[in-house]
């Protein structure tokens, strides 16, 4: 079962050139600004758990995700949460829209019934070598796939925050220290890049001592 979401794009190949415009407007089309504002309306109305909105984007059909802009992702996730929280139905949306209104797919992760205990003290210090856990959670996570199983060095401690993997699937919370971890490009890609490193910000439970 493919559980690693299409949103987890770091390192994927074949996308081609970046369509870069130095003086791009904030909104290209009037609907983009409206979609942005409607997202704020929905978030205010349904008060989702932390991470729940991002996970609604991550649950989009992969083909739709890759062929739509980010304002459309926000529209789709806002509509998904509005339906899941009972503001109205998908049928209501499709009747008004005059066609199909794709939403995010079902949540695959089981509810997190026991968030676990907060971790008050950091397990690692700046300079420590750490390895990222090699695992494939079925729900929301902020641990990108391209660093799993890789070894890096802690370069900064950023304080303790609620773990997204827990809060996206539960009203419970678990707080853990977070770290900025530096990975040499050579460790990540085995392609001989020199003088390149990638920093990823990670919760404590994503890591193990190396």
């Amino acid at each position, binding site marked *: 079962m493919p559980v690693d979401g299409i949103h987890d794009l770091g*390192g994927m190949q074949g996308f081609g050139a*970046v369509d870069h415009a130095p003086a791009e407007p904030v909104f290209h089309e009037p609907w983009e600004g409206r979609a942005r*504002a409607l997202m704020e*309306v*929905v978030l205010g*109305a349904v008060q989702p758990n932390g991470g729940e909105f991002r996970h609604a984007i991550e649950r989009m059909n992969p083909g739709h995700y890759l062929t739509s802009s980010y304002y459309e992702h926000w529209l789709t996730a806002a509509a998904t949460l*509005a339906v899941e929280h009972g*503001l109205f139905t998908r049928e209501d949306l499709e009747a008004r829209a005059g066609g199909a209104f794709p939403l995010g797919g079902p949540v695959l992760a089981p509810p997190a019934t026991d968030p676990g205990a907060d971790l008050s003290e950091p397990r690692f210090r700046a300079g420590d070598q750490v390895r990222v856990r090699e695992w494939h959670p079925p729900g929301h996570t902020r641990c990108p796939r391209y660093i799993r199983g890789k070894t890096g060095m802690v370069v900064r401690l950023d304080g303790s925050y609620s773990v997204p993997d827990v809060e996206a699937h539960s009203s419970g919370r678990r707080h853990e220290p977070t770290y900025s971890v530096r990975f040499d490009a050579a460790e990540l*890609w085995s392609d001989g890049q020199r003088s*390149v490193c990638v920093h990823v910000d990670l919760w404590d439970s994503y890591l193990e001592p190396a």
Partner: protein
Amino acid sequence: MSEGAHHPAAMAPVEQRVAALEALLTERGLIPEGFIDQTIHRYETEIGPMNGARVVARAWADPRYRQRLLADGTAAIAELGFGGAEGHHMVVVENTPAVHNVIVCTLCSCYPWPTLGLPPAWYKDPPYRARMVREPRVLLAEMGCELPEATEIRVWDSSAEVRYLVLPQRPAGTEGMTEADLAGLVTRDSMIGVARL
């Protein structure tokens, strides 16, 4: 054909889907009067890279501010009145002749809204997110930012709570310029790290 066979209707155009969502939220009384236009106006005029440019210009003009900015980005940026959502935990990374920094969010679209505004489309699209962590030197050159081989490239993937701002190098020949004039030199791209000044 079985009775349960479902032929999905064609996807409604995105403008119609936005209008549908807006109509349903309006009917339920969930959209405050004027909220949509105010939100659009705010992002088009008040929250944008002109804010980050003021931070950078102050750091160039005032060495003590630069020190505070690099030590505690959130507090130093708040001195100029900028903060809030997607800017609660700011880390400022400084470019030097030896080190070039660039920011990305491979998982979604994390970006420092109070200082840079909403991210440009290319920052959120798959090519940038996929490639900036895999081949940053190649991608930066493609985007017009060619770096000497000896320059170390540090990529920052905004995957947790911190949001990053790049402090670009002050261009040569700008001694004596006012802070306001300096701010006019600072581009959005230089604060993401895909351009040098």
